[in-house]
């Protein structure tokens, strides 16, 4: 049944249906509401989850690691500085191969302090070993919360999974969402079977041991293998989701009017919706423009993206965070995807929307139009910045 709800409520509903054994959270804007909704579910007896209100995000992720090693299905949610504080332990969660599910309400990292959306928090956790998915809408945030949990818990994967949703733009704005009925959602996510659970005292195990130069490298290589197993598992889980619910998410990204496009925007998150409006406007005027909106950001689907953009003449990659002293992180990945290809589109890198700066369809039609006559492009360009 279609309902009207915020992105937060949509994620909280998905979490209620997943019903983790433990949820450890610390409030931080704009994420707090997810935890508040969840606390309400616990209080009203709708879930049997042990909600652990901790004293910091460092402790939130630490509690998640402990609970997941003990054998529980575990989830959390955070944003910005909260994620920054979690990152130390997030690396450990990934190295211990704990499938902790996490919602990340994307918000700019300080400073200056700012509570609004950009992707600097997600980029900070880029290399930690967690799966990262980006949602365009509250509906996608809902669906991918269920999908990502199932993906994270698959045997060959068992990695933490972050579902990114743009702070305020998605978390606080009300959209039409069609959640699954509880039974169907629960059946899709399924039961969780931990490996070597610490609470199985009959079969003791040691978690998180010291690894010296003789083993650290091998353990990291095994972690790479888990990441390498994600793309195939991602497609399988999408297929299972389609079979179970009739909702078709197909592939690592969404191509919008991409097949015959000469000029294409590459984006992640809610700007995908803005870009669709811009693409439609220019298409109506007969221009061959399109969009590639990334869902699976880590692991990055290099080959699939290079294939999908192989016929395109010009690509503008939009990064919603600065990687100081470097091109944007998404741009670097897209450029790497074409490294070994004979045919490459001309690439340009735009930085946009920092600290919640509005990005409008007009901004993006301008980007698509100026690309047409642009020469070889070097360095960063900026959208919606006062010069």
């Amino acid at each position, binding site marked *: 049944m279609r309902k009207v709800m915020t992105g937060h409520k949509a994620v909280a509903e998905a979490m209620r249906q997943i019903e983790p054994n433990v949820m450890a959270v610390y409030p931080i804007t704009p994420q707090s509401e997810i935890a508040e909704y969840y606390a309400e579910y616990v209080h009203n007896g709708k879930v049997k989850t042990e909600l652990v209100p901790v004293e910091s995000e460092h402790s939130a992720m630490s509690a998640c690691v402990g609970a997941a090693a003990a054998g529980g299905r575990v989830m959390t949610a955070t944003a910005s500085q909260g994620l920054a504080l979690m990152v130390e332990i997030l690396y450990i969660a990934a190295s211990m191969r704990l499938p902790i599910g996490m919602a990340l309400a994307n918000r700019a990292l300080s400073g200056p302090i700012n509570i609004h959306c950009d992707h600097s928090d997600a980029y900070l956790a880029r290399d930690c070993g967690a799966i990262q998915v980006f949602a365009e809408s509250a509906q996608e945030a809902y669906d991918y919360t269920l999908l990502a949990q199932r993906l994270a818990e698959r045997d060959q994967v*068992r990695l933490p999974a972050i579902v990114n949703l743009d702070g305020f733009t998605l978390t606080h704005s009300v959209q039409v969402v069609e959640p699954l009925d509880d039974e169907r959602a629960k059946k899709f996510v399924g039961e969780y079977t931990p490996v070597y659970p610490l609470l199985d005292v009959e079969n003791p*195990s040691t*978690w998180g041991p010291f690894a010296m130069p003789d083993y650290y490298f*091998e353990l990291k290589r*095994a972690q790479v293998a888990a990441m390498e197993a994600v793309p195939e598992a991602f497609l399988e889980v999408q297929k299972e989701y389609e079979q179970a619910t009739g909702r078709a998410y197909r592939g690592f990204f969404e191509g919008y009017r991409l097949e015959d496009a000469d000029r294409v925007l590459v984006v992640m998150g809610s700007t995908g919706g803005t870009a669709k409006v811009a693409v439609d406007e220019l298409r109506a005027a007969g221009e061959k423009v399109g969009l590639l909106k990334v869902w699976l950001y880590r692991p990055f689907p290099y080959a699939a993206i290079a294939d999908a953009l192989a016929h395109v003449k010009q690509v503008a990659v939009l990064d919603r965070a600065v990687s100081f002293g470097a091109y944007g992180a998404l741009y670097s990945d897209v450029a790497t995807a074409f490294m070994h290809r004979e045919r490459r589109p001309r690439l340009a890198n735009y930085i946009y929307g920092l600290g919640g700066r509005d990005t409008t369809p007009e901004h993006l039609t301008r980007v698509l139009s100026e690309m047409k006559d642009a020469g070889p492009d070097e360095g960063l360009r900026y959208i919606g910045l006062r010069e």
Partner: protein
Amino acid sequence: MADTRPGKGYKLAVELKSWKELPIGGVVPGGAKPDMNKTGSWRSLRPIWNEEKCIQCLQCWMHCPDDSIEIKDQKMTGVDYDHCKGCGVCAGICPVAAIDMVPEGGDKCAR
């Protein structure tokens, strides 16, 4: 008595394995037991227990952060030098100064 000098008597817990053979997430199935890895070689000071002074209060056993005070029939019987780190907590807590800390390899080393 095991030779606990650095590089001597030190044995790896397992043969070195390929990354493909490692248990998920670096877990040690069955639990890592102290006899798998002798860590006493890190020690630079050695606690020497003087049995004749000892009043068997077991304060050292309660406070040792490394579970290296050996106990038999509820009596202190010595120090597990395979794992003792030489922190000196036992010597500090002992009410009758029955434990001396001496430099490893020093003249006064009793063992």
